[in-house]
């Protein structure tokens, strides 16, 4: 596990200055209430990213944010299935699955069928599909441990895996979710907080292009609150994007150093260990 990815987990909490002058929504709320893991309301869990986790895939990434552990492998571009219609541009096929041991109670899986299509929606806009006409890129996400904020983590991890596979992209996609808990806004919620939520907001964002690829809102939100939540999310997405870039650059500089001695060679040991 050495050498690849950021060695020290970095955090991507949004800076408090991003909320321009506006008083935070939780100010007049119950400040004594604490998050189960002792974080501040707008403090994210440390993030650890690593590319090249799966040898058989064209590209892969492993992400660990708090207890949530996700592995994404990217295959292709490869021939589309015969049943598919002809298309001038490439296709993206996404699948999100959970391991049977991902939840504390074994086999107690929630219905996550919609995650695959949401992952597809979030990534579709960021990939230059014209660069691989008629072929399909498969993205398989596996949630090893579900510790809350699974979907945003899957999306960020998948975009990193696509970049690792060398698929042409407009930008990386960083995704962060904010939950509304009473009067508070809670960023990067854990499973426990997810079950108490009044509303959720998920943003998938291309930090460099400053474009949102996906926005999902559930529950009841006031205009002020949703504004603040979006600002918090976008700020965190920008920082998360930086962490992802750092991870890619680190992996690239390691592999180019290794390849110096033997042109075209990819050191197996680096990826396997």
């Amino acid at each position, binding site marked *: 596990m050495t050498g690849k990815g950021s060695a020290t987990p970095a955090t991507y909490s949004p800076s408090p200055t991003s909320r321009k002058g506006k008083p935070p929504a939780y100010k007049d709320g119950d400040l004594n209430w604490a998050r189960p893991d002792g974080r501040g309301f707008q403090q994210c869990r440390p993030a650890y990213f690593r590319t090249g986790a799966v040898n058989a895939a064209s590209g892969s990434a492993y992400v660990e944010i708090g207890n949530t552990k996700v592995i994404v492998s990217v295959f292709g571009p490869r021939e589309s299935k015969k049943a598919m219609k002809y298309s001038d541009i490439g296709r993206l096929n996404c699948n999100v699955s959970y391991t049977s041991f991902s939840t504390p109670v074994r086999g107690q899986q929630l219905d996550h069928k919609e995650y695959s299509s949401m992952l597809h929606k979030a990534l579709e806009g960021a990939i230059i599909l014209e*660069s691989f006409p008629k072929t399909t890129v498969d993205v398989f996400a596996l949630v090893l441990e579900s510790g809350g904020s699974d979907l945003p983590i899957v999306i960020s991890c998948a975009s990193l895996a696509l970049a690792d596979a060398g698929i042409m992209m*407009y930008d*990386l996609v960083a995704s962060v979710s904010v939950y509304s808990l009473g009067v508070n806004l809670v960023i990067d919620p854990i499973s426990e907080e997810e079950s108490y939520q009044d509303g959720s907001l998920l943003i998938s964002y291309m930090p460099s*292009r400053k474009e949102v690829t996906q926005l999902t809102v559930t529950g009841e939100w006031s205009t002020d609150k949703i504004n603040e939540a979006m600002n918090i999310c976008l700020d965190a997405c920008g920082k998360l994007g930086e962490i992802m870039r750092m991870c*890619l650059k680190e992996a690239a500089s390691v592999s180019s150093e290794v390849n110096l001695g033997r042109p075209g060679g990819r050191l197996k040991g680096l990826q396997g260990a």
Partner: protein
Amino acid sequence: MALQEREEGLVTPGDVLGKAAEVRAGKGAYEHSGLVYASITGRSLTVSPSAESPDQRPTLEVMGLKAHGAVPEPGSIVIARVTKVMSRMASLDIMCVGFKSVSEKFTGTIRQQDVRATEIDKVDMHLSFRPGDTVRAIVLSLGDARAYYLSTAKNELGVISATSSAGQTKNELSPDLLYFSHLLVKSFILIEHHLDEHFSFESQETQLILFYYCFR
């Protein structure tokens, strides 16, 4: 053509490389709303334009450290293996695109009218290809939902290696004979019946017989 290349640092997808007014987007980069962005992870290169080109902006390219597998494109030369021969077309598995071997399976078809340039309606597919033959072909188009359309209707294209039914010998064509392969394939199996299993394409004798059949 004094192409100057200057290597710069590592970039990741979405990194801004420069303004579109000052630089052009090359391989691994794209232009959007006046800015040039990187689209893959790698090292960025600045390529100076040649003196005679009308556009004097330098081109920014990104050399990917890990590109995705090769994908056939119209116009690319592929090496493919014949899997099935039908009366009007042959199915092939593409093995190489250019010099790169493909990591995933791609299928192609050569239709009867794309086998050779002349007398295209008199082509007998079974005399031109046999399953197992290795063929050099050009990608005509992306084809249909099933396969890429390939063609061997050029001098330098055709069967480059085949197995004889008589002797189970693999007969590799020598590079200079490759040129004639488009003629060879069309009468290949015909010849095979007239030769014993020890024939070799390198021998002068065989070549003479081949020419006899080709120009007959």
